[in-house]
C-alpha cells in the first residue's frame, strides 16, 4: 500500500509548477487567451523540450513511457495554472487515439511528431444531436475506390481552431445510433472540403464546429479496424476522464487555498472573516470535498494502472464526484470572495469556468450516475 509519487513523477510535477510560477502568471495567461491564436506556440515548443508532450507515449516512439499516474501528475499541475495550451486535445485525445488504435506505421509516423511539438491535434466526436452519447453519429464515411469520402458535421471540437490534424469519428455502416459501424479517420484539417467555424469558450479554449463535405481520405487514414471504433473511443474516454479529474483536483486545491488566504485577510466587522465559525465550517467542507475527490482519483489511478477494465465503475463514480465537489468548491470560492469573486479580473471565476467545462466534457454527473447504475447494479 503506497500512495507516494515516484521521484521521476515529482520531478515532472516540480518542473510544471516552476514553469507556471516563473512563466505563466495570471497576466501572461490572460494575454495568451486574448491573443490571435489563443495559445502560445513558444510555450508548446517549450513543453516539447521539457518532455511533457512525450509522457503517455512508448519509448520506442521517443516517448517517456509513462502510465496513467504520470499523465495525471501533468494534468493536475497544468490545471493549477489554468494552462490553455492544448495538451488535453492534442496529447490525451489525438495522441491517445493513435497510440491505442494506430498501426505500427501510423504510430511511427505521428507519435514522434506529437512528442516533438510539430503537430497540433484534435478529436472531432461531438455532434449537434449527440450530447454525451458517443455512438450517436451521423457523420458518414463511404468507401470510394481505395479510400473513403467523409460527409457531416462535428461541433465544439476542442482545439478545433488551431489543430492541423483531426481524428474524426464517422459512420462506415449502420444507423445513426448503432454501436457497430463506427470508424476513426486521421484527417488533414486543411484538406479540401473541411470547413471550420471557430469560436472561444468561457474557459479560454478555442474550439470549432467543423463540416466535412466530400472530403476524400486514403485507406491508410483509417485508424484501427473499420466499424470497430466505439470500443477504442470508450477506452480513450476512461483515460480522458481520469486525466480531467486530475486537472479538476489541481483546480480545486488552488481554489481552496486562495479562498482560505482571502478570508484571512478580508476584514468585516473589525475581524478577519476567517474567524467566523460559520465560514470555518464551510471551508472545512470544501477541504473535505477536495480530499475526497483526490482519494477517488487515486482509486481510479490504482485500478486503471493495473488493468483499465478494473476501473470501469470507478471512472463513472469519479466523474459524478468531481462534478458535485467541483461545483461545491467553486461555488463557495466565489461566495466567500463576495463581490470580488464576481469579477472577470480575479482568477477565481476562471477556475470555476474551467471546472464547469471539465464537468460537461465526456458527460456530466447526471449522465455518469446513470452509467454507474447500469454498470454497478446490473443484474
Amino acid at each position: 500500500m503506497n500512495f507516494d509519487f515516484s521521484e521521476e513523477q515529482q520531478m515532472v510535477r516540480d518542473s510544471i509548477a516552476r514553469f507556471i510560477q516563473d512563466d505563466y502568471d495570471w497576466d501572461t495567461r490572460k494575454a495568451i487567451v486574448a491573443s490571435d491564436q489563443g495559445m502560445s506556440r513558444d510555450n508548446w515548443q517549450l513543453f516539447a523540450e521539457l518532455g511533457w508532450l512525450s509522457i503517455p507515449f512508448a519509448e520506442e516512439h521517443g516517448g517517456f513511457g509513462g502510465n496513467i499516474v504520470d499523465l495525471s501528475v501533468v494534468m493536475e499541475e497544468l490545471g493549477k495554472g489554468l494552462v490553455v495550451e492544448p495538451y488535453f486535445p492534442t496529447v490525451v485525445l489525438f495522441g491517445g487515439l493513435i497510440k491505442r488504435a494506430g498501426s505500427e506505421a501510423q504510430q511511427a509516423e505521428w507519435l514522434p511528431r506529437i512528442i516533438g511539438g510539430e503537430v497540433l491535434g484534435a478529436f472531432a466526436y461531438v455532434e449537434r444531436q449527440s450530447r454525451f452519447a458517443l455512438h450517436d453519429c451521423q457523420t458518414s464515411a463511404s468507401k470510394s475506390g481505395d479510400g473513403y469520402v467523409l460527409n457531416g458535421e462535428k461541433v465544439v471540437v476542442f482545439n478545433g481552431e488551431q489543430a492541423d490534424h483531426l481524428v474524426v469519428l464517422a459512420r462506415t455502416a449502420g444507423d445513426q445510433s448503432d454501436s457497430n459501424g463506427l470508424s476513426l479517420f486521421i484527417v488533414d484539417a486543411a484538406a479540401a472540403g473541411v470547413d471550420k467555424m471557430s469560436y472561444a469558450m468561457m474557459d479560454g479554449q478555442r474550439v470549432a464546429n467543423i463540416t466535412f463535405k466530400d472530403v476524400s481520405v486514403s485507406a491508410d487514414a483509417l485508424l484501427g479496424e473499420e466499424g470497430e471504433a466505439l470500443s477504442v473511443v470508450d477506452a480513450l474516454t476512461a483515460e480522458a476522464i481520469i486525466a480531467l479529474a486530475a486537472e479538476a483536483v489541481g483546480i480545486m486545491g488552488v481554489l481552496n487555498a486562495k479562498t482560505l488566504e482571502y478570508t484571512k485577510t478580508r476584514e468585516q466587522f473589525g475581524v478577519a472573516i476567517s474567524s467566523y465559525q460559520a465560514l470555518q465550517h464551510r471551508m472545512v467542507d470544501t477541504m473535505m470535498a477536495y480530499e475526497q475527490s483526490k482519494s477517488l482519483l487515486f482509486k481510479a489511478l490504482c485500478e486503471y494502472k493495473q488493468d483499465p477494465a478494473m476501473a470501469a465503475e470507478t471512472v463513472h463514480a469519479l466523474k459524478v464526484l468531481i462534478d458535485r465537489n467541483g461545483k461545491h468548491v467553486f461555488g463557495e470560492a466565489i461566495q466567500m470572495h463576495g463581490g470580488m469573486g464576481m469579477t472577470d479580473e480575479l482568477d477565481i471565476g476562471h477556475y470555476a469556468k474551467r471546472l464547469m467545462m471539465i464537468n460537461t466534457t465526456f458527460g456530466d454527473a447526471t449522465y455518469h450516475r446513470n452509467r454507474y447504475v447500469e454498470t454497478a447494479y446490473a443484474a
Partner: protein
Amino acid sequence: MDTAYSPEDLAFRDEVRGFFDEAYTPELQARLRSPDYKNAIEDWQRKLYDKGWVAPNWPAEFGGTGWTATQKYIYETERSLAGIPNVVPFGLVMVANVIMAYGTDEQKEYFLPRILRSEDWWCQGYSEPGSGSDLASLKTKAERDGDDFIINGAKIWTTYAQYADWIFCLVRTDNSGKKQEGITFILIDMKSEGIKVNPIISIDNHHSLNEVEFNNVRVPAKNVVGEIGKGWTVAKALLAHERTGIAGVADVKRAVRVIKEVAAKEENGGQRLMDDPGFQQRLADIEVELMALEFTELRTLATQAAGGFPGPESSLLKIKGTELQQATQELLMEIAAYYQGVLPVDLDPEALGHEFATEARRNYMYGRAATIYGGSNEVQKNIIAKYVLGLE
C-alpha cells in the same frame, strides 16, 4: 385558509395577460437583449407608466396602482411567466420608497414624478471596497461646507452607474459615535464635478458593475433624505424592501417551464433528458421546494396586506429564493452540455448550436451574485438568528 381567486381577480388576470401580450412586442424583446438595453427598458417602463402600472407598490396618492395584495401577486406572476424583466429597481422600488417615507415635500414633488416617467436613471451607492457585509463600516466622507456637503470616497458594485443620472448614497457625516450613527442618506447628481465611474467586467463577461469615485463632489444639503446622521435607519427600511420580491418565485417558475421545454428536446443516445429519472428527480427537488416557497411568500404578502411591515422574515425569502434561482440556472447550464461554455460571437446562434445556451451561461454566471448582493445570504442568516430567533 383560502387562496381561491374571486371573479374580479380572474378578470384582472385576463386584463394583465392581454396587455402583456400586446405591449411586450418581439421587437422590444430583441432590443432588451441588445446593446440598446437602456433605452429599451426605459421605453418598456414608459409603456407601463402610460398604462398606470409602472409602480404597483406605490400608494395611489403618489401614482401607484392601489391594487390589493392579491392583484399585486397576480400581476407579478403574469409578468414573470411572460418572461418580462422587472422594472429597474433602483429608482422605482428603492429610492422612491425612501423618498415617500422620509423625503421632504420638495423632494417628493421633484423626484417622484420623474421616477414614475423614467426620466432619471438611478443607481445605488452602498457598498464600498472595504465595506461589504459590514455595511455600517462605510467611510465615504461628507463634510459640511455652508449649504453643501463635500463628498470624498468610493462606492463599488454599483449596477448601471454608467447609465445613471442620480445615485443615492450612504455617506459618513460623523465619526464620533457608534459606526451606525453618523451615516447620512443623500442624493447625488451623477453629472456633478468630481465623479468618476470605473467599469468592472463581471464573470458573465458583461459590464453592469462599476466603481464610483467621489473627489471633492459638492452636493446641496437639501439633497439629504431624512435626518442628518439617521441614514442607517433609512437604509434598513430600504433593505427590507429590497428583500421582498427578491424570492422571485414567479421567475423560478418560468425557469422550470423553460427547463422542461428544452429538456424535452435534448437526447442522450435516443433517450430524452426529460425522461431520464436522474434528471427528473433533480427537477422534482427544485419544484417541491418552490411550491413551499410560493406559500411562504404568500404568507408574507398576507401579513403585509394586513398592514404589517416586511420584517426579518423577508430574509428567508431572499435565502431560499436565491438558492432556487441558482438551482434552476445550474440545471439549464447542464442541459446546454458542451454549449454552456460558448462565448457569444458574431455568428448566428442557430448555426452555432443551442440558442438558449448563451442566455443560460450569462444567467448562471451572473446568478452567482444573487447570494452575495442585497445583503449576502450569510448576513441574512445573521438577521434571522438575531431578530427572529433572538440569538445574540
